[in-house]
């Protein structure tokens, strides 16, 4: 893993959301997933910005669906985690795990 390719926090959130959503991950679902779980306002523009960055790094793969077969039906851009994406997320979690390995994080933090 090259230096400087650490995943940002929001990127990690997007990746985990995609993980949870399996093959239903697109703009609306990702945004709502993060918003409902983190309880913070998430802008759709930020979601797409993050997804684009991940896509450029090769961590997610975008596919555009056929328009829904109804009047006014829309096409959606679905995102899926790639193998490298999974590796990167694993790596990020691993790093956090290593950093926190032999301490009782919560207890330490409470003590501050």
């Amino acid at each position, binding site marked *: 893993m090259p230096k400087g390719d650490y995943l940002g926090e929001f990127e990690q959130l997007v990746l985990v959301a995609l993980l949870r959503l399996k093959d239903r991950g697109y703009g609306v679902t990702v945004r709502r997933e993060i918003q409902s779980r983190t309880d913070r306002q998430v*802008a759709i523009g*930020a979601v797409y910005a993050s997804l684009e960055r991940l896509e450029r790094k090769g961590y997610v793969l975008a596919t555009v669906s056929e328009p829904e077969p109804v009047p006014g039906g829309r096409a959606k851009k679905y995102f899926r985690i790639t193998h490298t994406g999974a590796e990167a997320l694993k790596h990020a979690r691993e790093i956090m795990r290593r950093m926190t390995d032999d301490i009782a994080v919560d207890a330490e933090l409470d003590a501050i």
Partner: protein
Amino acid sequence: MKQSERRATAQLPPRLARALIAAVAPSRDRRFILDDLAEEFAILLAEGNDRRQARHWYWRQVIASVPSSLRRRSAVSRPRFRGWSRFGLTALLRDVHFATRRLRSRPGYVATVVLTLALGLGACTAIFGVAHAVLLRPLPYPLPDRLLTVWESNPEKGNRLSLVSPPTFLDVRQSAGAFSHVAAYGGNTFELTGLGYPQHVAAIAATPGIFSLLGVSMAVGSGFPREAEQPGGDAIVVLSYQFWRRWFGGDSDAIGRTLKLDGQDFRVVGVLPERFWFPAAADLWTPLAFGPAQITEGMRGARYLQTLARLKPGVSPEQARSEMTGLADHLGSAHPNNAGWGFQLESLHDHLVGDYRRLLVLLLGAVGFVLCIACANVVNLVMARANERRGEKLIRAALGATKLRLLRDALVENLLLALLGAAVAIAAAFWMVTPLVRLAPAAIPRLDQVAIDGWVIAFCLSLSLAVGLVLTLVARLSEPRDSDHAILRVSGARTAGHTGHRVRRLLIVGEVALSLVLLIGAGLMLRSFLRLHDVDPGFRTDGVMTASLSLPRARYASNEARVSFFRDLLAQTEILDGVVSVGATTNLPMAGSTMRFGFGIDGRADASLNERLAAEYHAASPGYFRTMGIALRGRSFVASDNSDGAPVVIINQSMARRFWPASDPVGERITVVSQDGPVSREIVGIVADVRHAGLASEPRLEVYVPLAQDPWPFVTVVARTVRGETLLTGQLRDQLLTLDQALPLSRVQPLERLVATWLAPLQFQLVLVGVFALVALLMAMLGMYGVISYVVSRRVNEIGIRMALGARQRDVLRNVAGEAIGLAGAGVVLGTAAAAVLTGSLASLLYEVSPTDPATFAAISLLVLAVASAACFVPAYQAARVDPICALRQE
């Protein structure tokens, strides 16, 4: 299909917010983002939120998405401009941005440079605007370069370009294979009655083929039919568009109506297009046909037709010329009146532009000089600025900026300044062009079409780009070559920059030389103008009003009718309030009309045998010489010099001097030809020479006969008055109406204006060249002042050391001023040499002044040296007051 049901019932999201996010979102995701927002908006409404809440949510989403979208957009959009960036556009925009930022911190510098350049560019643009309309723009006809003017030519008799006689014109048209069309025309004036006041209307009588020769088709109706070639056909007329609008309101019913011209009915057959342009302005066109009376052998000597020809496709003017030479040989051997005459062909465009080409080239040269001086001043400023930024440049170079990169920065900055200058110049040219055209002599063709159009703007912009390029290169070449360790000396910048001094000195020499050339040109013109002003025209202009009128031949057919009309008119004018004296003549001086007839001296066979004599011919009333203030020896005409009296004549001094150098011609007799044939007349008086053809023309041989003995149907009335001119104009008109209800008075003007009109072109070139020369001098001196000040500021240390070592103020003053005056002197020498070469081209514009007039050269050189000394005195004085302690402490 739960979702689609929701969609159908959903209210639409706020339109403005939607437009905003659509505008900022990167194009690749725009559709998905909009759809996602719409979907969630619908979900919110379906979940029971009210519309206000949903809209609120939508707005918050959009606003929160703007920053990230914009960031992405700039990142994403770059590939879209890959094509552009290959041409360096993105980089260029960045450079421009950078240069703007740098310049913004130097408003004084920018203003000085931009205004200096705008002055030079503006003058160039305005003069180019005139030159473009007059010289460069093609004539408004199809294939205008195929149009030629045809002239008869007899250089041996001093007639290089003569009009063409009707029989010769017909020969040319019939036998010239080089031309597809040949047409002749002549000016004419009709008296128009039946539409408002009686009035004179300028007309052209032209052979019917003229419109197809020019390639013009009628706006309404048709041109002349072919039958109009034959004499005795219908009287028909073609109207100018403007005449048609004015008198027929642009109504196409005008075709077929009749106009009463000189009392005869003319049927309107066509109307010319609005934008039709012809060298001779006219409102009416009538067909010109030649009857048997016009194609006699004798008429071959009557050369009065303007002739145009259009070359056949593929025929060169040279081929046409050689064909015409053949025709001239043939005609010369067949007809005595054609013997010795050839043909001259001149392109219509060249013929129209004529002498004004020289004037405009001269003015373009003058503004070119002004621009050069402006550039020299700006180069000085640019160099000073480069020097000021030298430290920054060295640091950038040390950090890895290439030479090209630094040059590019300077180039972009200078181009930006030049373009700004061009913008100001174009705005100024728009504003300057109207007064310029008003000042210009009206005789310049197509002056009404002068405009700052796309071509002129393009000229100004390209010129400004060239200027920017030259500025950068000159400033760069004059920069010192920095070694790699120069950066170590940046802090001691005071000692740096001496290498540029040589260029600065050269610039001063150049500026002084250029402004000297311009000033000498202006000085020569001024001298010539003053000389002309001092020329005695032979008459007194002050307080004389003139008015022309012409009698229709139909109503004033007999000599008696005209004589009695003129007698009544003059008698009644003389008793008008404020009139001191009145007179009348057929040809007023400087009004452009002349008559020339042959004469012989009675009892002197030698004079009439050896050469055919001809003199300018005038018919004048008794009061004419007194009214005009023309000096007279002998007696003037009197009332009894009429058809019953003995034929008399008055000659001018030139004639008296030439034929009676030792004796008094009064009492001698000469035979003068006129409309009624030769008449032997007794010389009763001698008048002063009058410069009829203009102040610069040499006096010619002239004869005056009494108007009552040779009444022509046209005269100009002159009245010496003590009253205002407008009052007199009204009185004259009233007077005329009591004599003849249907007679128009034309060209009512003071005599002074005739002289002023004649001087106008000279005044125009004098004023323009003078203004440019003064601007040049001012700019050169400002440049000199700037450079000397700059050099002094760089030499403060050195001067301080000199003073510390014992130099006195006087020595420093002499040192600094001496250098400056030496430079100015070099400029004067160079400028004098250049002027001596260049003023040769002025020779034809000068009157009785040599193009290398030593007095002018000396006076202007001294003037320039004096002004240069004044310009360098202030900085020299400042240098002399340098305090050595302060100067050395700065080290």
